[in-house]
């Protein structure tokens, strides 16, 4: 038996410069083959064609401040128009002296969103926080109980878009869950009704549902039983969204292992208790990222209400460009809308993706 030697690992040496430097990076990532090099050059050519004119229009030659008429000779964008119309686009025809109320609601929203996204709050706290926020926001915007009431006809702009989407989600999630449960209930009549509703709604464009809500619904209702346009459109959005959410939730219900139900039954829980305490929480947690996807889709879809005369964010941007003092600045309005929509939707999708990464289990 020979003498035992001690193994001492050679210390790590830094990678050779050729495998770390900028040139190496360029070679690996942009010019690794002739085909890649060609692609890179094409992409660069595209960037050169698109970016400079865009920058010149949006930044270099843009007009940033000033009153009506300041943009008459500008060759770039007229951001002064956005500055002048920001309030209308954000809160519509809301009384200016009460503008602090929607702004406060917005600040609350930002706070609740921050609390949700940070992931530091317990889920139980959050599930309580959101309904409280909705109630507070509704009170702030709508008034009553000490605040002057502001009629719904004066709600508009981004506030209206967010409101339509938020209420849409808030109501359509429970409705969607009911529909999904109904669809899987095994009771022929109920599940036929649910399937019929879900498939009918999912089969048609939102526009037709909005048309129905705004043009047809008054014909269905008794003469003095009136629901205002906003509420009808909101109902249309809720019905539309709940059908889609039902399908998302159904996916979650299907993903629950049968063992879970067996285990719950074995504990002696009644069928509805099994559903409420075991199946639903797991299913909803499972489909949370998909639900957030639906939220994004719904928020984008609210832009269609312009077609039935509601002045939401996009609608207000269009209406604002009809002000006699500021005629002809529609494009800037659209760009502003696109930017805001983008930030909100992208933020939500990022959050959804982070939830997906965290995985369903670690969600407290």
């Amino acid at each position, binding site marked *: 038996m020979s003498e035992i030697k001690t193994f001492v690992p050679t210390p790590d040496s830094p990678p050779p410069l050729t495998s770390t430097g900028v040139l190496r990076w360029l070679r690996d990532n942009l010019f690794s083959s002739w085909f890649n090099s060609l692609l890179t050059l094409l992409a660069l050519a595209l960037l050169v064609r698109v970016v400079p004119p865009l920058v010149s229009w949006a930044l270099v030659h843009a007009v940033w401040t000033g009153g009506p008429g300041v943009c008459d000779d500008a060759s770039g964008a007229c951001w002064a128009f956005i500055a002048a119309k920001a*309030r209308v686009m954000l809160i519509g*025809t809301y009384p200016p002296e009460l503008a602090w109320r929607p702004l406060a609601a917005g600040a609350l929203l930002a706070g609740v969103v921050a609390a949700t996204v940070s992931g530091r709050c317990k889920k139980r706290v959050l599930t309580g926080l959101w309904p409280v926020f909705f109630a507070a926001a509704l009170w702030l915007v709508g008034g009553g109980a000490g605040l002057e009431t502001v009629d719904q006809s004066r709600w508009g702009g981004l506030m209206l878009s967010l409101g339509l989407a938020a209420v849409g989600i808030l109501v359509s999630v429970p409705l969607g869950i009911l529909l999904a449960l109904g669809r899987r209930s095994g009771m022929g009549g109920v599940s036929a009704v649910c399937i019929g509703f879900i498939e009918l709604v999912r089969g048609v464009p939102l526009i037709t549902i909005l048309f129905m809500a705004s043009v047809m619904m008054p014909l269905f209702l*008794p003469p003095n*039983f009136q629901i205002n346009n906003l509420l009808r459109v909101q109902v249309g959005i809720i019905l539309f969204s709940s059908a889609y959410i039902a399908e998302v939730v159904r996916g979650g219900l299907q993903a629950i292992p049968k063992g879970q139900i067996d285990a719950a039954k074995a504990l002696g829980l009644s069928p509805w208790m099994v559903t409420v305490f075991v199946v639903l929480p797991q299913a909803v947690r499972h489909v949370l990222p998909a639900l957030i996807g639906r939220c994004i889709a719904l928020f984008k879809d609210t832009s269609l209400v312009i*077609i039935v005369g509601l002045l939401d964010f996009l609608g207000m941007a269009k209406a604002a460009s009809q002000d*006699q003092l500021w005629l002809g600045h529609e494009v800037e309005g659209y760009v502003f809308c696109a930017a805001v929509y983008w930030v909100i939707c992208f933020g939500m999708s990022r959050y959804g993706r982070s939830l997906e990464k965290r995985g369903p289990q670690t969600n407290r």
Partner: protein
Amino acid sequence: MKIIGKLLLALALLALATGAMAGTLEKVQQSGELVLGVSEGVAGFSAPDSNGKWAGFDVDMGHAVAAAVLKNADAIKFVPLASKQKIVAVSSGQVDLSRGTTWTMKRDCKQGVDFTVVLFYDGQGLMVKKSLGVTKATELDGASVAVVSGTTSELNVADFARANNIKLETVVFESKKEAFNAYVAGRTDAFTTDVSQLASLRAGAANPGEHIILPETFSKEPLSPFVRHGDQQWKDLVTWVLFGLIEAEEKGITQANVLDMKAKSQDPAVQRLLGATGDVGSFVGLDNDWLVRAIQAVGNYGEMYDRSFGPKTALNIPRGHNNLWTKGGLIYAMPIR
């Protein structure tokens, strides 16, 4: 079971609710506000300003009615309506009064609404670029024309082409603004809609001087506010408030001098109008100061017109047909007595 009980109760209520509609005047007075249907934003007629306040010709019309009925010109709830909705919105009672819309036989007789007074005589016209060198609409054979969908202008342009045996290619758009943009961008040779709006859109173009409005109007577009069919009392009220505004211009009563005139005018017609004598207010279920309030709120018809379309505005539409009959126009109020 409780829930089901409640549901049944609600349904029963829904069934009971199938009754006759209450009178609009009563409803307006009870709720304390006038529900006015406006556009989604048409310069001059109705559009929100930078403070979010609705302004424009139709809006002033609403202020006048609100002032007469409710003694508060601002007691208005504005409901923006898309073209496709406006008739149903009025006929189903969602709004009490709608913005001016072309008065046609079919709408009046078949669609459940009643028109009141024509406040704006419009006509469909054609706008082309000056550089095209066209001076008459009939020279446009083969041209393409941008029109707005769901309006009578779409049908008028087809009729015009058929009647004059020329070919016009129409390109239909959902809104005026899109149609106009397409025309400015050169997608079409011409753009057609009511002359007033041609002017309004031209004012917003980059170079208003490049476009000319051709002399022909090939349709009659009498824009009149309208109300629900069958509510005679409310229709009378709106009609006579509007006649009152026109009569006021004829008699030289303005926002500024209305109280003076009421106190001092010796003209019996003015005295009747302003409630100094007689009781015309009671004819429409109001007090005698009804028109004084309306005029105080928005001025007479001419002032209303100038505020939205006059020379000081970006639109600058000459009075033309919309001048008083005494000055060669078509604006004419029935005698208030």
